[in-house]
């Protein structure tokens, strides 16, 4: 019996221990990939070591005391009241340790709060359950008009980026563990968060403030590109809209899109047949007042809060495992028809709430005045979906 208990306990312990060594753990907090995360790492490692040693000493001391002084029927030992010298020492030592840790912690906090050396600014807006990024005009990066995208935050590597975070509905929290600590996105406030990636690559993260039904599906990725690649990305985002050629499936898809989707989704530069610009009205249809801008959907490779891949498995693998030299070119090639994850995208168009829990049942919207949280099931026909996929593939 006793053997078995020991066996089970040590089994669980070693499983826990070994799970710490997982190789495919993109949100590992112990693997900084940028200076801000390194500043945190430089603090947490020694603190963890000190705390670990003290933890071991205390545990061992308790075990020894429990075993050596257990009740064996011996007489009650001499009772004394305190030992001032010992007590003062045992107060001063931890106080000193905490002071040292405190000094370094404060330094770290101030280092992380610095904004004077910012090189680039991106507005980050959270809403149930995806992140929107907009890039204000910054001519030094070729951003001559605002850029707006979602899910994947694209930044130049080796550049000090300042995120100005806020939220459109409830509190969310932005955290890319490899690049920095977390910071809340609070409605009505702008919180500043520095991030910087050393090398090109893709870094995963997740909303870390419980924000409702699909909190677990509110993910994000930071994509760092070399400066040259970033300039290409910017140029592509600023490319004007081109309507698909007449008499193609994609052109029919554009018509379906105008009928079904533009009440929520903006596609910059899209015009109706009579030449008037198409302006989406997410404020009239969604609680948060926003839906992802789809102008260059296929230039990103995830969708719906980075929960689903736009790339199929092998193409995704290719991008994620690329070394930092070849990563940029692979990312910039976007999503081609061959690489498209048809299953998930079609599933999304067929019935979005079935793939990601959202409050999008039209019968239950009295409390929000008819507005959705998330994308509803639009009851599209398979033929419409076929056309839409062809159209969405042109949004590169």
């Amino acid at each position, binding site marked *: 019996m006793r053997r078995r208990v020991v066996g089970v306990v040590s089994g669980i312990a070693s499983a826990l221990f070994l799970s710490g060594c997982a190789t495919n753990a993109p949100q590992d907090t112990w693997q900084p990939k940028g200076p801000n995360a390194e500043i945190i790492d430089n603090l947490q490692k020694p603190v963890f070591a000190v705390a670990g040693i003290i933890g071991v000493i205390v545990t061992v001391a308790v075990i020894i005391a429990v075993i050596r002084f257990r009740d064996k029927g011996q007489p009650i030992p001499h009772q004394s009241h305190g030992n001032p010298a010992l007590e003062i020492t045992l107060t001063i030592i931890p106080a000193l340790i905490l002071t040292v840790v405190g000094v370094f912690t404060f330094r770290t906090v101030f280092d992380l709060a610095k904004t004077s050396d910012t090189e680039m600014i991106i507005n980050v807006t959270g809403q149930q359950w995806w992140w*929107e990024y907009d890039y204000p005009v910054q001519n030094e990066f070729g951003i001559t008009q605002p850029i707006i995208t979602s899910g994947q935050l694209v930044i130049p590597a080796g550049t000090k980026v300042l995120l100005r975070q806020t939220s*459109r509905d409830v509190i969310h929290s932005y955290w890319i563990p490899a690049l920095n600590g977390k910071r809340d996105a609070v409605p*009505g*406030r702008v919180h500043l968060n520095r991030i910087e990636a050393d090398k090109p690559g893709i870094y995963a993260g997740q909303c870390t403030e419980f924000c409702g039904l699909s909190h677990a599906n509110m993910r994000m990725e930071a994509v760092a590109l070399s400066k040259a690649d970033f300039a290409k990305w910017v140029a592509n985002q600023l490319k004007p809209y081109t309507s698909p050629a007449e008499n193609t499936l994609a052109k029919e898809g554009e018509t379906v899109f105008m009928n079904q989707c533009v009440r929520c989704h903006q596609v910059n530069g899209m015009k109706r047949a009579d030449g008037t*610009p198409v302006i*989406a009205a997410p*404020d009239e249809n969604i609680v*948060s007042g926003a839906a992802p801008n789809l102008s260059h959907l296929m230039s990103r490779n995830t969708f719906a809060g980075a929960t689903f891949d736009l790339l199929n498995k092998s193409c995704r693998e290719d991008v994620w495992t690329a070394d930092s030299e070849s990563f940029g070119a692979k990312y910039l090639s976007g999503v081609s028809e061959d690489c498209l994850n048809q299953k998930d995208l079609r599933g999304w168009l067929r019935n979005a709430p079935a793939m990601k829990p959202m409050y999008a049942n039209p019968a239950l919207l009295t409390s929000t005045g008819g507005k959705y949280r998330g994308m509803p099931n639009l009851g599209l026909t398979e033929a419409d979906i076929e056309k839409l996929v062809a159209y969405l593939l042109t949004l590169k």
Partner: protein
Amino acid sequence: MFSTGSKYFFGITFLGTIAFAIYMLLISESAIGGTALFGLVGATALLTGLLLFTRDGSNGEEGVAASAAAPTKSIWPLIAAVGTTLLLVGAITSTVVTLLGVVLLLAALVEWSVLSWSERASSDSAYNASLRKRLLNPIEFPVLAAVGLGVVILSFSRITLAVNKSVGAIAFIVLGSLVLAAGVLFSVRPNLKRGLVSGICVLGVVGIVAAGIASAGVGIREELVLAKEEGHYMHQECGAEKSEHFDKLPLEGVSATASVDTYIELIDGKLVASVQGFAGSQQSITVPRSNPTNILFRNKTEGEYRLVANLGSKTVADGVKEEVVHCTQLIEQGFEQLLTLNIPKPAEAGKPFTLTVPGLAGQSIEVIVP
């Protein structure tokens, strides 16, 4: 046959059943509400049965310590009954009534339980009464005082809303002096008869409440009625001139220190923006759509100026368009005011959104909504 405890639970079960029936038949067929009420009925029915079966857990002997005196006369059963009625009536009429019922029931629950508990504490009924007081007076007095004060304040507010502004001020001064005078009188003459003291207090309160009810009947004064009808405080007038209503008392507006996204300053006649996170001043600001953005306007120029946000136009009816304009009040030099913009859609091509100052040509900051 029925033991005391089982009667109590039987009562709750009975009322719960009625509530359950009324809820399901008349109010709504909601699963949550139904389950809750049904759960209550089930639980109390079970307790009724248990208590009947065990005869309240008594072993047949009478309690030795219990007072032999008959129970005190008490108003709480009556209040509990009224509370229950209100609870049920409220379920059909309005939540306010339900809330009142809940409050009465809670009060009755506390008072009644403590009362019956204290009556059995010993065989000395005087001691029992003091026990009750010791427990409940610390709750009763503050609650009664708060309710009393609330009534007086509400009545007085009706009076000041009904009468002319200066008359209201005078009434306030007179009332304050009377209260002070009464207070002084009571403290220098501690031996005044109790009846006299309570007479003065009751007279004062009744007077105020009566005047309050009368004023409520008369309604609020004309000036306020007019302001409400014409929406003086809702309707912004954004011109360069001082507007009669909107620009009243600008310095009483609330400013903000935290949560400011952008500072717009008018420095010696020049409009500049400084945005949190950006170094230096900007000539355009980017505001995410559908997101309340706080802009603080500071006037650092001699004279009074206001900041105006020109946010394009919106269709109010078929074919009818209305300019969307928001503004601060006229702000004196050295002062500031917050303007919160929530812009749902990007600007039309060629018609950018701007922040301007009426009366100052050539000063404008573009608001970009991607």
